[in-house]
């Protein structure tokens, strides 16, 4: 019954087309930056929340679930950011990062460990040259309340100690008061201080509050050279949420289409269950697609999530839930 002579859409129209890389514009004034950010579309909160609610009903079964769990494990930035961290705890975390399940070598390594700058050397000593990255928070994490020279020194010390990924925080006070250029300049400066280390820019979306702010801050961070944009520090009341991730992924998608630049997204804070992690992967899958379904472009900042992923992974393979104590507590 289907009409024969269809004018089909070309395969090009499916998926995200990313052009060759273009030079990013540089901004030297507040007004230039403002003009660029003004072109962004607003976000309707009801619509964005409805979209993720719908995506959250996707049902991942069988092989899809198995491969999604392994993918999620490989995307974890295994994190410890406590005042009470010790060298021993960090070493133990690194061992776990390299081989998350001591009883099962088929479990992939996580993407990175994420620690405070003073723990970077300890982490690097265990991680060595393995593909697992050593990420360090910097720039007076989590509040960002320090002068730029302090932030830059914080960053340089972490890089010098062996961090190949830096998770910086933006100056939310400056952003919210409309001093967008200050935020931009700081990111540009920290990016330079990173050298070859990858820069993740934490927007602290719980403090930006509106989705419009999230989209603007995402775009600003990407213009300033972020390799990743990250939702949260995990240290405030509201951390990663699915609608915020959606808005950031949409920004990343539009940025890639406009400038040919691929920027990753890291969701952090409050993601504790496999079920939650898979919801994020569905949103990635249906918003930005295959290229981002990789630890190079999507990360979970988490600690307890990993053990739930391991628990569910074992369940998928053996049909039984293991005792939680089967997996190490770090």
């Amino acid at each position, binding site marked *: 019954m289907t009409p024969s002579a269809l004018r089909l859409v070309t395969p090009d129209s499916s998926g995200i087309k990313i052009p060759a890389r273009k030079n990013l514009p540089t901004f030297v004034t507040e007004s230039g930056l403002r003009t660029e950010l003004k072109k962004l579309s607003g976000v309707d909160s009801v*619509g964005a929340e409805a979209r993720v609610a719908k995506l959250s*009903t996707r049902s991942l079964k069988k092989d899809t679930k198995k491969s999604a769990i392994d993918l999620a494990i490989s995307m974890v930035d295994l994190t410890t950011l406590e005042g009470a961290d010790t060298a021993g705890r960090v070493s133990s975390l690194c061992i776990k990062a390299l081989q998350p399940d001591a009883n099962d070598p088929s479990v992939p390594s996580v993407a990175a460990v994420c620690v405070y700058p003073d723990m970077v050397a300890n982490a690097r000593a265990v991680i060595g040259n393995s593909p697992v990255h050593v990420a360090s928070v910097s720039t007076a994490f989590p509040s960002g309340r320090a002068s730029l020279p302090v932030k830059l020194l914080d960053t340089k010390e972490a890089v010098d100690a062996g961090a190949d990924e830096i998770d910086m925080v933006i100056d939310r006070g400056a952003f919210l008061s409309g001093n967008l250029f200050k935020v931009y300049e700081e990111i540009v400066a920290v990016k330079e201080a990173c050298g070859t280390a990858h820069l993740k820019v934490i927007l602290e979306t719980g403090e930006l509050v509106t989705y419009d702010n999230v989209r603007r801050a995402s775009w600003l961070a990407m213009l300033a050279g972020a390799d990743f944009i990250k939702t949260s520090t995990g240290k405030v009341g509201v951390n990663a949420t699915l609608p915020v991730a959606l808005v950031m992924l949409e920004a990343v998608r539009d940025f890639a289409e406009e400038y040919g630049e691929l920027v990753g997204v890291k969701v952090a804070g409050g993601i504790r269950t496999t079920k939650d992690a898979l919801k994020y992967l569905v949103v990635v899958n249906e918003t930005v697609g295959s290229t981002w379904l990789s630890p190079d472009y999507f990360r979970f900042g988490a600690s307890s999530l990993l053990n739930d992923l391991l628990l569910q992974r074992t369940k998928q393979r053996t049909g039984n839930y293991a005792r939680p104590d089967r997996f190490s507590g770090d």
Partner: protein
Amino acid sequence: MESLHSQLGGLQYDDAPESAAIAKIKNEYGLFINGKFTDAKEHKSFLTINPATEETLSQVAQADSKDVDAAVQAAKRAYDKVWSKTTGPERAKYLFRIARLIQERSREFAVTETLDNGKPIRETRDIDVPLAAAHFFYYAGWADKLSYAGYGPDPQPLGVAGQIIPWNFPLLMAAWKLAPALAAGNTCVLKPAETTPLTALLLAEILQQAELPDGVVNIITGDGSTGAALVEHPDVNKIAFTGSTGVGRMIQQRIAGSGKHLTLELGGKGANIVFEDAPIDEVVEGIIDGIFFNQGHVCCAGSRLLVQESVADDVLRRLIRRVEQLRVGNPLDKNTDVGAINSAEQLARIAELTSTGEDEGATRHTSTCVLPQKGFWFPPTVFTNVSQSHRIAREEIFGPVLSMLTFRTPEEAVQKANNTNYGLACGVWSEKGSRTLWVAERLRAGVIWANTYNKFDPTSPFGGVRESGFGREGGRQGLEAYLNV
């Protein structure tokens, strides 16, 4: 100079089907008259099939005029002897029971609806069934408060209501019709559509379970002749019809001068108007929900997309990409977005109208999705370069086919949106509240959504103007259709 192509949906989802066995469909069904399932007097019957597989689901009794008479007489008796003497709080008690029983058996309803109608389980599970229960809950609340509904100190019911419902939302339309009628104190004879009788019959089981007095609701299955007999029956005091404008017109002619009350909820050609400042990602989702929800089998579907010229290219590019992403296939799969067309007849009509779009010079963009071999399917389709004189811009297609037009000024948007015989629903997308209100004031449509589309709620009245019908369903206003005011 493309360097990379990121495939959307690159993570393939394995099949996640809901079990068809949950539906517990019987091999045959009789007519639900006076609280019991009875055979049709002439023992005629017809088959109802699963439009996604063309497999037979059940054999259903065909009511003729004698059966209709029996059903109307049962309703009349129940009205005179029982229901008109039942107090508001008592009526509410039954409605609350029905609502709770629908919730309890929601999975059964969802699967049955998906099998009989072809719509995705995600929609029946998340929209049709919960909304149907919500309508009963909502009107249960009104049953003992009619004096405060604004229709006088003691508004009276009409008597026997004949209710004829369509195949696009079989259970939900039954709820929209029955709940206010019963709350207001009427008794009912409900005729579900020929292709989708099963959830109404399951609802009949629930009415038995709820111990609703015999004859208060009677459900008779059949084709157009059954509906015609119901419309013409002298003891019917009220006709409520949802369906095509053609049939609605016929009903109005047939009951002219009979004194019967009438409400009609008919077709539409809804305009979804997008201004350049609208939130673009949500706009795209809204357009998708507006036209591909329920395969476009929605009387208020946003089947005409009006986009401000300055953003038309961007909207189209994103829309086509999103259309390509829609998962079309097995309606029972929890990840399906677009299900089957309800019948071969409807598929033929969609195909015919769609082909005129190409013949008249519009540009067709059709999803490359792979359609199942068996069953009735139509790929999601968008037409561009559509002008207002094209048939695809004027006639209701009632399928997953969108016609996109452009405009330059708010005046032009309003003029184009109103350039239709219909007047059921419109959508307005803008971040500027003043403009949304300016446009909404000038649109001739019963329902206007702002920055959303196809949102339904029992508290909100729904209905059309002009050839989309008259009368409202839902809300306080929905009571008026069943009260002598």
